[in-house]
């Protein structure tokens, strides 16, 4: 999902990183959940997404472990 553009919406298909996936899922990023890419920080990293009804920020490195369908 690191390639998403502001305003785009997608569905999480898979969490690729075993260790991060645990934390991401606790924060509501579950496979099948809808995410919206809101904006990125001025230096391009981290980024802000909407998921499970709230706003979450994560680094590009973490975002790239989330595979999406759109």
């Amino acid at each position, binding site marked *: 999902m690191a390639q998403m553009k502001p305003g785009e919406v997608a569905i999480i298909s898979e969490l690729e990183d075993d260790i991060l996936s645990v934390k991401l899922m606790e924060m509501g990023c579950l*496979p099948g959940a809808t995410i919206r890419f809101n904006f990125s920080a*001025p*230096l391009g990293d981290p980024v802000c997404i909407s998921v499970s009804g709230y706003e979450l*920020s994560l680094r590009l490195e*973490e975002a790239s472990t989330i595979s999406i369908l759109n």
Partner: protein
Amino acid sequence: MKIALVGNPNSGKSSLFNILTGLNQKTGNFPGVTVEKRTGFSKMPDQTTAQFIDLPGIYSLYPRSLDEQIVSEILLHHKSPDCPDVVVVIVDATNLKRSLLLVTQIIDLGLPTVLAMNMMDLVAKAGISFNLIALSEKLGIPVVPINARTGMGVDQLKKVLSQEVSPSTKVIFPVFDEAKSGVEELRNELGIDNNYEAYQFLQQPTSLSFLKAQERIFIDQVKEKHKFFPGKFHGAETVQRYGFIQNLLDEVTLEPANENRTSQSTRFDKILTHRIWGYAIFFGVLFLIFQSIFAWATVPMDFIDGLFASLSNYLNDVLPEGPLTSMLAQGVVPGLGGIAIFIPQIAILFAFISILEESGYMSRVVFLMDKIMRKFGLNGKSVVPLISGVACAIPAIMATRTIDNWKERTITILVTPLMSCSARLPVFTILIALIVPDKMVWHFFNLQGLALMGLYLLGFAAALISAIIIKLLINVNERSYLIMELPTYRWPKWSNVGYTIVDKTKAFVFEAGKIILAIAVVLWVLASYGPGDHMERAEEYVLQESENLRLTEQGLEDRVAAYKLEHSYAGILGKSIEPVIRPLGYDWKIGIALVTSFAAREVFVGTMATIYSIGSEEDQTTIKSRMRAEINPDTGGPRYTPAVGFSLLVFYTFAMQCMSTIAVVYRETKGWKWPMIQLVYMTMLAYVSAFIVFQSFS
């Protein structure tokens, strides 16, 4: 009755705690650990008094930072006397889905639980409507709608709490079949009364510090025997819980949200995280903070200074002469004054930090700064401790607990004391006044002001450079991440800001206070006693030396004081380190000031006053003119040349001259290793830089 408040960060937990307990609260520490524990008491409707404990915000029972670990430990250690009788889980009802994950985990622990649905006003605004009766039935626990900002529903919550609350009969997550036999064995052997508690012991024994060594070994054996390997189960548990939550929400949500609330927040973010405006606003905020610390705090600081000085004089006058009076008037009272004088700056700084946190802006600062800070081995979350360090390193170091990565947290702790704290300011002010001319450059900048700003920037640059170097030296490859909620912007709740100010100021007064006070007394002893008869017969000696000078009574007194200091243990120490500090351009008099300010830097000015026989009144202009007149016998010129002055300034910028900080770092890092490393590297940095400065200027 002990009631614990648990909830996600930004769920309004602190507001609820403040409403419940009012000023009837105190901050302490959990036994054996360093995490602050806020407790308070509240009168219940049945006239009993209940104790409330405010626990740090968490998203799940699987901890990642120190703050989070303490919550898991409190809730999972059912046999501990600290284990709460009832748990109130407070949730942001506009964000119910994610909040319910923690709720379901706590229900499964089998503790009596009450769900407080906060922010019901915003729920109404967003057009959401829940069937709370159905929610309560499905979860098997009482559900109380509240608004922690106005206090609505809090009486109802108290009423529910004063009735018997029993644990939920529902089991939301029955432990996996693979773990059943292991859980069974643990429950029998360790006498654990709940499946999920035992399951947690199997899942994460290493993050539960209350487990004894033999219990850990036993848990490992059980895991081995029943072939239970926790890895994949944590994720599977989360998925299963969210499955339950989704079904639950489908049943209890009568009306879902319209999208307005978050989009409003996003509009703010368009400006506040803009590539130009974002940073401009952030630096504007920083400027405002510094401006108020330095300009507005001086009025109350001068007042406190004067108050303690007159108290000291008053005690000297009214009490009978003797060592006790002297200790009280010259040791204890100035020591207390030395603590109290920093209160205004610390209070102002934490007022700002609390407002920024309450409003949700602080998360955006982390968001803006993360990429930059990472280059230096720090974390976006290091920004808060670094800013706080400008007032005082003690609360700043305590603020590093939110950083979940051990390496980034340690680096932040190690470099934070390089930020110029308020204790350095009196030293800077007097030295700058001495060596930098009071001139305007380009009709706008005051040269002295520029010099002061330069020193702050120097401290900041040193912090960043040290961070890079330490980053390369600490060879730990722990994964760093930043998965952080960006809370919706809200208007700060002023009473919460007030409570934070009181809380942080108290923490400073007690943490730093007891050490500064103890040191003040030790210094008084060192400066008032000495070997031989020099101390008792100081007056005779001075009279002999200055027979030809017709001294006034005051002049004689001041000379006696200076003579005493020279021959006291402090004076001897100053003289004995003279060979070491001579390459920096210092003499033994400055040596005494260095020795005394090793405990707390601000003592420098007072020591200077005594050494140069100006008596106990710390009048800046007198000290300044006396220091200016001091002659260096080797050169015949003034002692405080620009070279010496700058060398001292650089030394005070870098040196770790604060016993209280060392004590706090010891507590926060649980050992002497890091405070000692910090002491050594900062002292070396100070010594070498001061040496270079002195040698290249002279």
